């Protein structure tokens, strides 16, 4: 089901699919992203502390959240002829094997510029305890050629 720029109003909600995090999913992300930082691989290393933080075991790549948010936005934008143009994110809580995370978006504002139309979307990822693990903001462009 595709949306139109004119039909969008602040508060409009986008839900992405849930993602089950496991040691295997983290390993697959290492292989696919070439990010083999021991934060994501080595339980012994992760028994140590990072400044005041002790993670107690391997954690998921923050950018795995980024990938899930991107997927949510593009799957929403493509059918509308819209284009995912920007994503800014911040990681607020580590994600660990056994967690289930899910991205969400909420339309914050929309704006027509001289040459195009833009939707500004607050995004977040929550875990199975409804804790926010990532927050951010995205911009999706609805080119003038796209359906009104």
């Amino acid at each position: 089901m595709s949306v139109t720029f004119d039909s969008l109003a602040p508060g409009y909600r986008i839900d992405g699919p849930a993602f089950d995090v496991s040691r295997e999913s983290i390993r697959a992300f290492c292989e696919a992203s070439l990010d083999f930082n021991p934060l994501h691989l080595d339980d012994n290393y992760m028994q140590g502390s990072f400044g005041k933080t002790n993670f107690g075991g391997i954690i998921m790549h923050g950018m795995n959240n980024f990938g899930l948010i991107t997927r949510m936005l593009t799957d929403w934008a493509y059918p509308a002829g819209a284009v995912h143009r920007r994503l800014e994110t911040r990681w607020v809580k580590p994600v660990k094997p056994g967690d289930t995370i899910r991205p969400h978006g909420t339309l914050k504002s929309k704006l027509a510029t001289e040459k195009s139309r833009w939707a500004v979307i607050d995004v977040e990822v929550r875990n199975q305890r409804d804790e926010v693990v990532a927050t951010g903001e995205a911009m999706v462009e609805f080119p003038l050629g796209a359906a009104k």
Partner: protein
Amino acid sequence: MSAQAFETDFWKDAKQRKIWDDIVPGEARKTIPYTLTLEAIQKYCRSVGENHPLYFDEDYARTTPYGGLIAPPSIHILLMFACTPTDDWMRSPGTVNAGQSWSYNIPARPGDTISLQARALDKFIKKERLFVIHDNVFFNQRGEVICSGRGWTIRPM
């Protein structure tokens, strides 16, 4: 570059990498061109559950305004490591990614030769933690900008 050629032991060459004290904001990072294959795109897609036919179904993709298969915007996650050498400080074990922001121009496509221009943009201390901001632009073989972005990293101490 084949997957086999990629050094997955991030401890190797760790001593050659710049630490926070050595990093000069504004100084370019060494980068290497990378040929993006359909296989690498699809492997990345599967790792985050991306299943859109624009990334998997050539016949479908040809019927869209994109005119053929593309990579998802977030492919820069892979490109960041694919386009940098083993002594790049982004690989230092314990580097914590605090957040990133990216702008997208045109999609990367299978077969593209991707190049990266990258530098440290800023470094600072906050709550006794060492931060470096990195600044990156990815180009295709025609010199067109694919995407640009920056990231906030907390450096290992």
